[in-house]
């Protein structure tokens, strides 16, 4: 390896545009859904359908992605809206962390990518570990004050009286458009900043840097988690990249696949739409420790066949 950093503006522009083109449709789905939730979902309906038991709510949040699949770019804006509608914080965190992984599209892509490398084992471990870690983090959040976690504008849920149910249909649709466009502008600013930082690493840093780590299990797991954070790939395609790191153990690849969709450079910026900086820092540490411990201590083995 004769260099560790080699920047090219044209490579950066190409990589950056490809991430933007890939992520924008999913952000649009998120903001349109968010606009509909804003106008047509009264807070009292949400309060009625959610389990009163907080643990049941967290478990439900962790599994919600299976029926309401969202990628990590689009989900933040949806949970921001749901939090305003009164969704308990712990349920929102469980949904936010689990949904980009526990959904049919990601399960299928993980299976396809790991054919010949223990496809079933990797898919089931990925889903199971993502669910477990989401539930653990959400359970910790249960004990935190809403004010210490959320940005000030999200700390007080809407009052039921604020719901604009009395409006004419045209005015309701106008409100959907205003809300969706407002969210699109908000989340896209953060998305672009994150995409730029991730692309800088993705195109400029020599990826051979992490290869020596593959010889040590603990370091290889940490190294693959760091790589997932730097590359900031979409959860629907990251398995295809992880599967190419044949020098690394299954546990290290699993760490890449669980940590990346929950926390990467792009998400650090996007999470800023909802959470306080201190909580984001806590989330980084918590997720890193939990994923690392799980992948180094659990009997994962090396998947084959």
């Amino acid at each position: 390896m004769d260099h560790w950093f080699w920047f090219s503006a044209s490579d950066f522009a190409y990589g950056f545009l490809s991430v933007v083109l890939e992520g924008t449709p999913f952000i649009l789905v998120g903001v349109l859904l968010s606009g509909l939730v804003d106008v047509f979902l009264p807070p009292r309906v949400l309060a009625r359908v959610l389990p009163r038991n907080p643990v049941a709510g967290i478990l439900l949040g962790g599994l919600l992605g299976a029926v309401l699949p969202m990628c990590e770019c689009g989900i933040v804006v949806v949970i921001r809206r749901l939090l305003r509608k009164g969704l308990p914080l712990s349920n929102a965190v469980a949904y936010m962390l689990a949904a980009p992984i526990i959904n049919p599209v990601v399960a299928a892509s993980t299976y396809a990518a790991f054919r010949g490398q223990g496809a079933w084992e990797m898919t089931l471990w990925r889903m199971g570990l993502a669910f477990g870690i989401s539930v653990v983090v959400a359970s910790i959040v249960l004990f935190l004050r809403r004010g210490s976690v959320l940005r000030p504008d999200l700390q007080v849920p809407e009052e039921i009286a604020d719901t604009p149910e009395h409006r004419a249909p045209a005015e309701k649709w106008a409100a959907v458009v205003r809300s969706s466009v407002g969210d699109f502008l908000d989340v896209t600013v953060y998305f672009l900043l994150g995409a730029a930082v991730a692309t800088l690493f993705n195109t400029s840093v020599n990826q051979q840097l992490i290869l020596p780590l593959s010889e040590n299990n603990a370091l290889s797991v940490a190294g693959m988690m760091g790589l997932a954070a730097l590359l900031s790939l979409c959860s629907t395609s990251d398995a295809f990249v992880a599967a190419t790191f044949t020098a690394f153990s299954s546990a290290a690849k699993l760490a890449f696949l669980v940590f990346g969709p929950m926390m990467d450079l792009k998400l650090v910026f996007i999470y800023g739409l909802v959470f306080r900086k201190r909580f984001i820092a806590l989330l980084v540490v918590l997720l890193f420790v939990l994923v690392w411990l799980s992948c180094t201590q659990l009997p994962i083995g090396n998947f084959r066949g």
Partner: protein
Amino acid sequence: MNKRTLTLVTLLLWGALMSWFWVSGRIVAYLHPQFHPLVAAAGIVLLLLAPLWWWATRESGAGCSSCGCHHEHGEEPRSRLSAGAAFGFVVLLLPVSTAFFVSPGQFGEAAIMNRTIVTSITQLPSAVPETAVLDEAPVLGDADEVPDVAQWPEAQEEGVEYFTRGPDGAIQLETIDLLFAAEEPALREQFADQRVSVTGQYVPPRGDGSARFDLVRMFMVCCAADARPIGIAVSSPSLPVAARMGWIRVTGKARFANDGESVQPFLEAESIQEVPAPREAVLY
């Protein structure tokens, strides 16, 4: 310019940009085909949202009190821009427009070297050659699990004849086909010492003074962010005069070097020709 107008400009610009990528076909260099319809749909939705936004904010009173979008005080659609909102619009408009004009639609040498050239098909578990001779083949995931070529009727019956031949009789291959053949003994036997023609980008040798260079083609799973360079070594009496990362066609003998641990394909060049970039420069 107030926030309402800048928002309209942003939606139009983003919608036009995404639509243009799709209409012009430029999208093929950036994303896997499965994402192309999504980009087209996003472009149309953004272009539709622009007039809808103008309509939805037509009344002077339409702002925080009724829109539900929870602006900070003073951030209503018709208000003057705060410094934060102005920064937001700069981020929304400037980088994407600049990248649109600067991006060459392919990676250069820096990104190729940072990603390291893939020289074994086992590093691409999802790879299936485009030329379809191996359409029936189980996908390789591990060097220990190389499937038997006898499972693939076309390959067995037609062998290398399944591939297209150029006017000079050379078999037309992609770099990925040779990597595949390197892992498959029966196919390797059929390709070895055959005259083949492979198109790719020229990566010059790095500093050792040899005339052995790399011929690479990008392989994309989802978008350019995950694209990996698939390369084969080419030995030649002299280096091509092509530009670095320029497109060349190398015609020569396919060889396979076995060092006891792995088999590496390489080409012994007979002729090297500069060619225009293929319409689909990326392999999927």
